[in-house]
């Protein structure tokens, strides 16, 4: 059952059609029986009339295609008849109604013995005309039904559509809700059937909002609280390294780990800051190419340490955006590319105008992302191939989630496709072309 509307209309209309048509048939049947009875009575009247005509008078004026016919027999001889009957008796001499074929027609017949005049009257009426007459009268009464069925169909369709409209409105309101809008539904649930679903939806939204808020708050609070001890740790470690220069190997590893921990905490804070309800957008006109060049320069050391070749090309592209957020976006894409590209690999960054806006593309020659994972990489804490990634790189899996947030804040879109190298991934961020950004 795909549609409630089709179901209701089809079933209601079918039931109505079934009942009305069967009722019409029953009506037809009893009308025909009644007509039959009336016609038989008429035939009897005709026979009585003929029986009482002056004896010996032959009525031959009835033409050949007359609807009635008769014979009058006295002691085995035909004494009177209409012109449309054969010379022989049209039926046997047994009183009552019957059927007979003669003269190329089928007749309803009546054999009637008149005691007073001592003769048989055989009267007959053509069945085809008799039925046609009755049928035409009855059909006239059935015809309006045929016209009423399609009209009923349209009416039922309209009524059902009207009845389902609150449901449609309810669906529309749910549909038009922003992803982050968890405020209660405002549709007036005056209909009894919708009241419950409305109330439960609102309760669900409420619960969802509370738990989401709690989660966000917890993450950002925890990150905040962790920052200070991490800073302290770093200083202590630095002092420790100075005091015991002979244990450099141990302390370096520890430094790396603490740096990574610091990074994760910063990322969590970035993610929190870039969430729509925390984001204090300060959109200014930005030259994306200049910004990209700055970020590339800042991150250059990272690539250099892995002997990776980083190429940048771009034209001046202007857009309205948040400088800090866009820098975070690019930094995340670049560090991602560096992380997952083996030593000696290549990374291309380009910024260009396209037909529909501005494209920022970061391509690497890493192992690439399988097609079925391309959607999930944007989820928080998701890492390609779990933590068994061949790159052996540590990461927290938040980078791309942050990228996605920032992309959404700029009404841009992000897509993943194979890179132009033999292997690897290309991340393409497409910013829409707003009128103001073409300066």
């Amino acid at each position, binding site marked *: 059952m795909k549609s409630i509307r089709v179901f209701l209309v089809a*079933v209601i209309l079918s*039931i109505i059609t079934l009942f009305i048509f069967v009722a019409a*048939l029953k009506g*037809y049947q009893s009308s025909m029986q009644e007509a039959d009875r009336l016609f038989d009575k008429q035939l009897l009247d005709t026979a009585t009339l003929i029986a009482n005509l002056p004896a010996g008078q032959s009525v031959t004026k009835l033409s050949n295609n007359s609807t009635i016919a008769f014979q009058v027999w006295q002691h085995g001889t035909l004494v009177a008849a209409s012109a449309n009957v054969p010379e022989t008796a049209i039926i046997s001499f047994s009183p009552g109604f019957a059927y007979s074929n003669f003269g190329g027609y089928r007749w309803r017949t009546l054999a009637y013995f008149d005691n007073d005049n001592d003769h048989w009257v055989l009267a007959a009426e053509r069945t085809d005309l008799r039925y*046609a007459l009755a049928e035409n009268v009855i*059909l006239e009464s059935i015809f309006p039904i045929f016209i009423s069925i399609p009209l009923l169909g349209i009416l039922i369709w309209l009524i059902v559509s009207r009845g389902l409209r609150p449901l449609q409105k309810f669906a529309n309101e749910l549909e038009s809700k922003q992803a982050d809008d968890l405020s209660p539904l405002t549709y007036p649930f005056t209909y009894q059937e919708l009241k419950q679903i409305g109330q439960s939806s609102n309760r669900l939204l409420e619960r969802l909002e509370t738990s989401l808020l709690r989660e966000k708050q917890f993450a950002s609070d925890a990150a905040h609280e962790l920052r200070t001890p991490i800073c302290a740790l770093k200083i202590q470690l630095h002092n420790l390294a100075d005091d015991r220069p002979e244990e450099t190997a141990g302390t370096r590893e520890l430094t790396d780990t603490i740096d990574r921990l610091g990074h994760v905490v910063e990322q969590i804070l970035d993610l929190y800051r870039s969430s729509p309800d925390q984001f204090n957008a300060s959109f200014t006109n930005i030259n994306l190419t200049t910004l990209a060049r700055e970020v590339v320069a800042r991150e250059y050391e990272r690539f250099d340490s892995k002997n990776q070749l980083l190429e940048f090309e771009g034209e001046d592209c202007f857009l309205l955006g948040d400088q800090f957020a866009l820098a975070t976006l690019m930094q995340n894409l670049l560090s991602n590319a560096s992380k997952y590209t083996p030593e000696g690999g290549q990374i291309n960054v380009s910024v260009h105008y396209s037909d529909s806006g501005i494209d920022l593309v970061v391509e690497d020659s890493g192992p690439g992302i399988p097609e079925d994972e391309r959607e999930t990489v944007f989820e928080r804490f998701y890492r390609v191939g779990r933590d068994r990634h061949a790159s052996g790189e540590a990461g927290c899996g938040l980078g791309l989630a942050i990228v996605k947030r920032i992309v959404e804040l700029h009404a841009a879109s992000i897509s993943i496709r194979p890179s132009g190298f033999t292997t690897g991934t290309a991340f393409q961020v497409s910013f829409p072309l707003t009128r103001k950004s073409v300066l």
Partner: protein
Amino acid sequence: MLLNSVILILQETLEAALLISVLLAINLQFGGGVRWLILAIVGGLATSALYASQMSRVSEWFEYTGQEVTNALLQTSITLLILLCSWTFLRCWSAGHDKVAAHYSFRFHLFATATVLLAITREGSEILVYLMGFYHQASFFHTMASGSIIGFGIGISVGVLILYGLFSLQGKWRVAAIISILALFAGNMLSQATLQLIQADWIESAGAIWNSSSLLSEESLAGKLMYALLGYEATPSGAQVIAYCTGIILVLLTSMLALKMNPTNGKAAA
């Protein structure tokens, strides 16, 4: 006259509507739209027009029993196709996942299309012969048209109600209902085919083995409905009863085999 038009059209429409409803209910399992049905109906109308136009020539085959032989052939083919439909349906249902459905989907649509096409060929030809005979007779046209509308109306309405009735059943109840209807339909088809062959004197008939016309006359509207839906006969011959049971048993056996082949779901035999 009107009553006769109604009954003539209704009988044939009802049989087709029942078949189509059941196949549509099965189609729910496979999905993939109803394009096959449109194809089958259009194709069936075309072949029935061909059959109707060649009716007098066909009648002359086999010493003037060509009609019976052709109808019996069509009805036997429909029975076999119903077996194939039941088989694919239950194989898919018992496996219970989409990959198998996709695997059997094409086959089922093929069998279902052929079934509907053959059924409409036989039923449509009778209606067409009837309608074409009246088309030029203005005096009867009104009656015939009204009768046809009522007949089609009742037939299609019953079909829609059966369809939604089947839709509203859940899980194995729906499967049981579908298989039961298919079994009765197959029995009906084989019984009719046998009757055709008796009429053509290909099978010897020993006369009626019972007479239930006092209980339910074949001439009554209810009797007519039962004839179209279940193949009811007030005075069936022994061969017909055997054929009817054979049809039912064949469908049930096919169903059981289809379910048995998958041991994980063999319990829900219809």
